[in-house]
C-alpha cells in the first residue's frame, strides 16, 4: 500500500477519485506478492467455475447408472477405462462427474451457512457484549438453551416436518451453528469495549450501532475469519451427515459429503469412492484457509504496510545487486 505523498489532504483525496478501482488493482498487486494467497484464490476461482459450469464440464450425467460397469476402478488400473476416468460407484455412476456436480451443493451450502450463521451470530454477540445487562442475559440464555438442545435432533425434527430441500438444509445448519459465533464475538467484545478508542468514540458522541460496526467489528476480523473457516469445513461434513441420514440432499442430486458417506461401505473394495470427494473437500478447505490468512493480513493496515515494506526492501536489494554486478563486469572484461 503506497502512502500517498501529496501536499494537501484534498489533493490526496482527489487522487482517490477512482478509489474502488484503484484498490482493486492494489489488491491484485498485493495478491501477486503473496504466493500462498494467490494459489488459494486461483483454487477457489477454479472450484467456483467448476461448480457453475458443471453440466458442461462433467463427462457423464452424475445420476446415470450403468450397472454393467459397477465399481470400475480409475484409469490407471488394468481394468480402468478412459470412459470413467476416476472409476464408478456401486451403481455404476461416474465418480468424476459426481465430484464435479457435488461441488455445487457443497460450496453453496458451506458458504450460505457460514454467511447466515456468522452474520446472525456476530450481530447477536456484538449486542450481547456491548449492551450488556438484560440484552446480554437474554441472548446468552438463548444460546445456552440452544447449545444444550441436541443439534441433530433439532435438524431431524425440522427436516422431517418441512421436508428436505437445499434451503431447509441451509436453514437447519445455520440454526444449529450460529451460537459459536455469538459466544466468541461476545467474549471478544467484552475486552475491546474497555479499550480507550471505544471510549473515545463514546465521548465524541457516537451511537451504539456505529460503535459496534465501525469500531469494534473491524477489530474482530482475524478471529472471526479463522472461526468462519473452521466452521466451513464442519458444515460441509454436517451436510454430509444429514444427507447420509436421507434428510439432506435428495438423489439424484449429489454432494461431496453424500458421496463420502455412501462410499464408506465400499471403502475396502473401492477406495476411490471416498477418496475423490474427500480430496475435493480437503482442497476446498485448504484453498479457503490460504485465502483467509491472506485476507487477515490485508485487513490489518499495519500488517499490510509491513508486507509492502518487505516487498520494497526486496526490490531495492535486487537493484543494488544488479548495480554491483554491473560495476564488476567491466573489471572482468
Amino acid at each position, binding site marked *: 500500500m503506497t*502512502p*500517498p*505523498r*501529496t*501536499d*494537501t*489532504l*484534498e489533493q*490526496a*483525496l482527489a487522487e482517490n477519485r477512482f478509489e474502488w478501482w484503484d484498490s482493486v488493482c492494489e489488491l491484485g498487486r498485493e495478491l501477486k506478492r503473496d504466493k500462498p494467497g494467490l494459489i488459494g484464490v486461483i483454487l477457489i476461482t477454479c472450484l467456483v467455475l467448476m461448480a457453475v459450469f458443471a453440466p458442461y464440464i462433467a463427462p457423464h450425467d452424475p445420476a446415470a447408472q450403468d450397472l454393467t460397469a459397477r465399481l470400475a476402478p480409475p484409469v490407471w488400473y488394468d481394468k480402468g477405462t478412459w470412459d470413467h476416468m476416476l472409476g464408478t460407484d456401486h451403481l455404476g455412476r461416474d465418480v468424476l462427474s459426481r465430484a464435479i456436480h457435488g461441488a455445487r451443493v457443497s460450496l453453496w451450502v458451506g458458504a450460505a451457512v457460514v454467511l447466515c450463521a456468522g452474520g446472525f451470530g456476530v450481530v447477536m454477540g456484538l449486542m450481547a457484549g456491548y449492551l450488556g445487562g438484560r440484552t446480554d442475559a437474554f441472548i446468552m440464555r438463548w444460546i445456552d438453551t440452544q447449545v444444550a438442545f441436541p443439534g441433530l435432533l433439532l435438524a431431524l425434527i425440522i427436516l422431517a416436518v418441512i421436508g428436505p430441500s437445499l434451503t431447509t438444509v441451509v436453514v437447519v445448519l445455520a440454526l444449529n451453528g450460529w451460537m459459536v459465533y455469538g459466544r466468541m464475538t461476545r467474549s471478544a467484545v467484552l475486552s475491546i469495549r474497555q*479499550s*480507550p*478508542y471505544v*471510549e*473515545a*468514540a*463514546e*465521548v*465524541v*458522541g*457516537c*451511537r451504539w450501532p*456505529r460503535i459496534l460496526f*465501525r*469500531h469494534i467489528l*473491524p*477489530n474482530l476480523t482475524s478471529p472471526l475469519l479463522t472461526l468462519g473457516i473452521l466452521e466451513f469445513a464442519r458444515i460441509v461434513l454436517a451436510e454430509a451427515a444429514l444427507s447420509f441420514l436421507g434428510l439432506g440432499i435428495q438423489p439424484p442430486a449429489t454432494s461431496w459429503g453424500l458421496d463420502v458417506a455412501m462410499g464408506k461401505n465400499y471403502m475396502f473394495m473401492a477406495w476411490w469412492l471416498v477418496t475423490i470427494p474427500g480430496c475435493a473437500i480437503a482442497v476446498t478447505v485448504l484453498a479457503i484457509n490460504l485465502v483467509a490468512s491472506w485476507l487477515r493480513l490485508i*485487513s*490489518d*493496515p*499495519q500488517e499490510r*504496510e509491513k508486507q509492502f515494506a518487505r516487498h520494497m526492501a526486496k526490490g531495492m536489494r535486487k537493484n543494488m545487486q544488479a548495480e554491483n554486478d554491473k560495476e564488476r563486469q567491466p573489471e572482468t572484461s
Partner: protein
Amino acid sequence: MTGQTLEGRSDQPLVDVRNLSVLFDAGRAGFWGRKRLTVHAVENVSFDIRPGETLGLVGESGSGKSTTGRAILGRVPVSQGHIYFQGKEITHAGKNRVRELSRDMQLVFQDPYASLNPRMKIIDIVAEPLRVHGMVKNTKAAAKEVARLLELVGLPPDAGARYPHAFSGGQRQRVGIARALALKPRFIVADEPVSALDVSIRAQVVNLMQDLQAQFGLSYLFIAHDLAVVRHISHRIAIMYAGNIVELAERHLIYDSPVHPYTRALLSAVPVPDPPVQRARQRITCPGEPPNPLNPPSGCRFQSRCPYVTGTCREKAPELARRRPGQMAACWNC
C-alpha cells in the same frame, strides 16, 4: 450554589462542581455477606473552572482524579452533589443530553497508542465527531476541516490518509487533540495527556495545549501526577488525596507556600535538578498507605499518615476553607 445565582455573575465559572461524591457498588462482603460494599472513589469535592483557565488536578494513583474528570463528562454516575456547566445543572444528564454536551466538553486520553482505532485512517478518526453530530455528510466533505485541524495541532496535511500505527506517540496524541477540538468545545478534560509520552515530547504537547488555549479560550481540567508539567500549564492546582481535595490554590501559592501537610510531603518528593540543593533539602516523609477506599476512616482521610494528627482529625473531616487569598486547604491544624 444554584444555577440561578451563578448565572448573574460576570466571572461566572464555566464548570462548577459542588460537593461531588462518586460511590461505586462493589458487591457484597463475602459470598453470603449481608453488608453491601461501596468504593468511596470521590467524596465531597468542590471546585470551579473559569473560562480560559487551566485547573491542574494532582494526586497519586487511585485518588479519584480520573473519576472526577469522567463524572463531569457524564461518564460516571454521580452519587451526591451537583455539577454545573455554563450555569446549567448537568449532574444527572441523560444519554441525549450527554451527547449534546459532548459538543462543548471533550476528553483527551492518557494512552495515545490505545485511544486511536488501529483500523481507521486519521482523517476518519478526526472527522468522526463532525459526522456523528451531523455536521458533515461524509468524510470527503470534512476534508477541509480535517486538514485545518491537523495543521492546528502541527501535523502534516497528508497525515490524514494514513493509519495510526504510522505515527509516534507524540503525533498520535496530537491526533487525539485534533479529534477533541473538532467540535469546537469550550472545555477539555485532559486525563494525564502526557504521562504516556517520552519526556522529550512532553513539552511539545503541553505547549501545543497552551497555544490552543490562548487561541480558542479553552478551559482545561488537567489531570496529572507529574508536578513539573502541572506547574507549567496550570493557573490553579487542586491536590487530591484518597477522594478528597486537600488543597486548592493559585499555582505559585501551591509551590511556594503549601499549607496542607500532604501537599508539603508531595512537593518535597520532587527532586531538584541541582545536587547540592537537593542534598540540603529536608524530605518530609509520611510513612503508610492511603486508606482503603472500601472503608475510609471517619474524620480526615490523611489522619493515618499525618505528622500533626490530633483528636479532632479522627472525629470530623475538615472542610476546604480559605487560608489566604487564592488558597484553600482542608486541614484542622494548618
